[in-house]
């Protein structure tokens, strides 16, 4: 069976994480909280599920991590790499293309 648009369906968590890390470096809990609050709680990562994802992105060299102590707490901070930034640009343009297409279709149906 032919696959549906896999990058569209699977790329959303990647897009969200890379977009957040493009603003500043963050640790896992912060990323989950930011996704929840900035999407008006309409999207949320399962707590803990973010780590496999971050490790995957790190293995793909899209993010890098560093363990640091901030305010008495040791945490792994993740930041975007040059490859991650490039991937973010690709995903952003793909997302724009898909949402524009969907918006056009929805507009036709509503008309």
């Amino acid at each position, binding site marked *: 069976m032919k696959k549906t648009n896999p990058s569209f369906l699977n790329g959303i968590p990647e897009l969200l994480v890379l977009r957040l890390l493009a603003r500043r470096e963050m640790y*896992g809990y912060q990323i989950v909280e930011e996704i929840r609050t900035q999407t008006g709680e309409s999207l949320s990562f399962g707590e803990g599920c*973010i*780590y*496999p994802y971050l490790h995957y992105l790190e293995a*793909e060299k899209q993010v890098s991590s560093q363990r640091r102590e901030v305010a008495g707490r040791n945490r792994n901070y993740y930041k975007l790499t040059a490859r991650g930034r490039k991937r973010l640009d690709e995903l952003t343009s793909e997302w724009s293309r898909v949402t524009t297409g969907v918006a056009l279709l929805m507009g036709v149906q509503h008309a």
Partner: protein
Amino acid sequence: MLRTDFIEQLRRRLVELGCPLAPSRRLVQEVADHREDLKQAALSEGLSEVGAETRADVQLGDPLALAEQLLVALRRSSWWGRHCVIGFGVLPVLAVPVLWLALLLLQLSLEFTLGFGWDPKKLHAAAANPVVFRHLVIVIQCADSIAMALVTLLFCWLARRAAVSFKWMATASTICSLYALFVQAIIKPHSFEIGVSWSPHWIRAALPLLIAGAICFFRQRMMQRFQEKVAV
């Protein structure tokens, strides 16, 4: 903070699933940090210590399912984990003879450089002397077995590193074993050959399987010790 039921269950499940030690430690540490953040958030909302811990555990979900998700992601993060069939089923068929031959020739070159091994002149001279010839046979057989053992260890190490299931390690080891059964370095008076021999060499063929078995055995023991430690 780390010694909680949730974290111990997560750690135990990761070990059971064959997650290598270093990534396992990191995953457990990060989930423990996350749990502490969730707990602090709950405490700041006025919950009790016990209530905050319970809520953090509920938010994190089932530790066993989480361990499985973590392992799947770990496997997906490496080429060997994503392409088990190619990496441990197809590639060894092509790579084992090449790697074995390269390692064998490297060892023989080293031995030759050190003055203990084989070179054509020595081979002809040794053919007349049974003691020296026996010495050469032992050197070449050892080099041959070491080369095959190193190739097997390489695939076992790759399988462990990618955290794939034991069956893939066993598959690669079986391929090494089949090669060891028929492909070998043969030394005869006045001749040294590398190729296929139709008289199977059973002891040599057992070596890759013994290596895989030993790794599996030590892994089981490590898991057992870990479980005893947790039970105490």
